C-alpha cells in the first residue's frame, strides 16, 4: 500500500455494454517511478486513467493515489496530481496564456515563473487563440498545464502525441527531471520506443486486461538479442546451431546472424574456436517484444 498509485482488482463495464472495458486490473506505481502503460487503441488505457481521475466510476475494485481513495478522496488527490487527457482538448476561444492563467487560478503553481520557464522550453505560443494552434502546439500547452504545479503524481494519456521529435526529447527531459525530484509518473502510450527511453517499468494491457508487467531493464536482459558475425574461416551451420538458445541465419558461408535468448557464454565459446573478423550487436528491438505480446491483436 506504499505505492504512489495502487490499483487493486479495478474493473469497469460501461452502461449498455456487456464487455468489460477494464477487467480486474491490479498494479502499483512506486514513488519516484516512471510507469509506462502500453497497449493498442481501445485496450483500456484511457479507461484506466479516467477511472483513476474519478471521471468514471469503477464497476468494482479500488485504487489509491498517494494513499487516498480515488473515489472518496478525489478532490484531495487532485491537489497532488497533474493530468493530461489523450486528446488534449482545451478551450478554443482562450489564448494559451489565458488558459494557463485559468488552470493556475484553480491550482496555483508552486513557483512563480515556472509556467513561463516551461513555455520557453516547449517554445509554446501563448498569445494565439488555442483554436488557431496546430495539434502539436496545443499538446505543448496541455503538457504545461499538467506539469506547471509540479505535482507529486503525473497521469498522462499519450503525452507525446503530435509532438515533433525535438519537443518529444524536451518532454522526456522533463519526465526525468520530475522523477529526480521524486514525482511518480504513469503514462500511457502505444509507442514502445518512448516507453523504453523513459520508463522504469512497463505494463502491457490488452482487451482490458493487464497481460504482462516488466522492468524495462529486464525486458532488455531477457529479450532475444541479435548479433551479426563475420568469420575469416567457415563455421559449420550445425556448430552454430548447437549454441543454446540460438537461432541462426547464414547470409553467406562466412556471415551469420544469430538471435540469442539468455546467456551469452555458449555463443562466445563457439566463436572462440573460430577466427572472427567482426561482431555487431543490433540495437534491442523492444518493438519486436511488443509485437510478441500483441500477436493476437491483428488476427
Amino acid at each position, binding site marked *: 500500500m506504499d505505492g504512489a498509485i495502487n490499483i487493486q482488482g479495478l474493473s469497469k463495464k*460501461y*452502461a449498455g455494454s456487456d464487455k468489460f472495458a477494464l477487467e480486474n486490473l491490479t498494479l502499483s506505481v512506486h514513488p519516484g517511478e516512471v510507469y509506462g502503460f502500453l497497449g493498442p487503441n481501445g485496450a483500456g488505457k484511457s479507461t484506466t486513467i*479516467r477511472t483513476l*481521475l*474519478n*471521471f*468514471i*466510476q469503477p464497476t468494482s475494485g479500488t485504487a489509491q493515489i498517494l494513499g487516498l481513495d480515488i473515489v472518496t478522496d*478525489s*478532490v*484531495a488527490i*487532485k*491537489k497532488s*496530481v*497533474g*493530468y493530461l*487527457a489523450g*486528446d488534449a*482538448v*482545451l*478551450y478554443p*476561444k*482562450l489564448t494559451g496564456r489565458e488558459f494557463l492563467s*485559468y*488552470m493556475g*487560478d*484553480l*491550482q496555483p503553481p508552486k513557483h512563480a515563473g515556472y509556467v513561463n520557464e516551461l513555455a520557453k522550453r516547449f517554445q509554446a505560443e501563448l498569445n494565439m487563440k488555442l483554436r488557431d494552434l496546430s495539434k502539436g502546439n496545443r499538446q505543448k500547452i496541455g503538457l504545461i*498545464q499538467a506539469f506547471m504545479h509540479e505535482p507529486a503524481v503525473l497521469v498522462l494519456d499519450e503525452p507525446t502525441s503530435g509532438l515533433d521529435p525535438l519537443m518529444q526529447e524536451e518532454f522526456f527531459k522533463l519526465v526525468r527531471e520530475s522523477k529526480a525530484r521524486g514525482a511518480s509518473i504513469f503514462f500511457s502510450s502505444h509507442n514502445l520506443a518512448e516507453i523504453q527511453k523513459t520508463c522504469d517499468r512497463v505494463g502491457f494491457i490488452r482487451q482490458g486486461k493487464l497481460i504482462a508487467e516488466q522492468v524495462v531493464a529486464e525486458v532488455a536482459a531477457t529479450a532475444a538479442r541479435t548479433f551479426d558475425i563475420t568469420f575469416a574461416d567457415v563455421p559449420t551451420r550445425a556448430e552454430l546451431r548447437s549454441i543454446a538458445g540460438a537461432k541462426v541465419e547464414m547470409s553467406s558461408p562466412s556471415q551469420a546472424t544469430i538471435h540469442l535468448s539468455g546467456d551469452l557464454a555458449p555463443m562466445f565459446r563457439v566463436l572462440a574456436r573460430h577466427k572472427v573478423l567482426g561482431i555487431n550487436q543490433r540495437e534491442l528491438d523492444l518493438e519486436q517484444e511488443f509485437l510478441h505480446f500483441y500477436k493476437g491483436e491483428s488476427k
Partner: protein
Amino acid sequence: MKITKWTLKQRKWSTLWWSVGLVAYITLTLIFYPSIKNQTAQLDKSFDQIPQSAKALFTDTQDLFTPVGYLSSQLFYLMLPLLLAVLAIGLGSSLIAREEDSGTIELLLSRPVSRSSLLVQKALAGLVILFVVSAVCLLVILGLNNAVGLHIGAEPIAVATLYSFALAALFGAVALAVASTGRAGRLASVGVAAMVGLASYLVASLSSVVSWLEWPAKLAPNHYYHPAEILSGHYEWWPLVGYTAVIAVLLVAAVTSFRRRDIG
C-alpha cells in the same frame, strides 16, 4: 468562485449580444406607445372582438391600452419572460453540457474542484448572466417609462422584471437539472425545459377561461405571475420565495445526479 469568474469571462460577448438584442426589442416595443395611446378607444373596440381564450394567451388584463395594460401585454406577460427563459434554458443546457461534450470538463475536474462545486459555480455564472441581462432590460424600461408617457412606478416595474428573471431562472434550472443527468439528458434538456415552460404558460393562461385547468394551473409557475397586477402596485413576495425554493430543489437534484455518474 474561480470557475464562475472564468465562465463569465468566456461568455461576455454572448451576454453583451443578448443585452443589445433585448434593448432593441424593448425599445421598439415601447416607442410605439405614444401613437397608440391616442387611439385607445378605437383599438379597445376592435380588440373586444377577439375571443377571451385568445386574449388570455397574451395578457392578464382587459385594458390593453392603458399604460399598465400595454406594458403587461406587450412585454411582461409573455415576451420578456419568454426571451429571458430562452436565454436561461440555453445557459442551463450548456453550462455543464458543453464542457462535457467537448471534454474540457476533465481539465476542471483534474484540479482540486469537487463536482458539486463545479456545478454550483456554473449555475451561479448562469444566474449572474441572466441577472445582468434582466438588469439591462429593467434599466431600458425605466429609461423609456416616462419618455413614452407610461408613467408607471419604478418599483412595480422592478418587481415585474424580478418575477420575469425568477421565472426564467426556474426554467433554466430545469434545463440544468436535466442536462446534469448524463448524455441523454444533455440531448433532451432544451426540449424538456421548453416543454415545461410552454406548458406552464399555456395552462396558467388558459385556466382563466377553461375551468378544468384551474387545478393543474396551480402547479404552473406562471400561475403565480400577474404582471398587470404587479405593475398596478399589487404584488406579493411569496411566489418569488416559492420560485427560489423550486430552483434550489432543482439545483440539489442536479448536484445529486452529477456527483456520482460517469463524465463524458
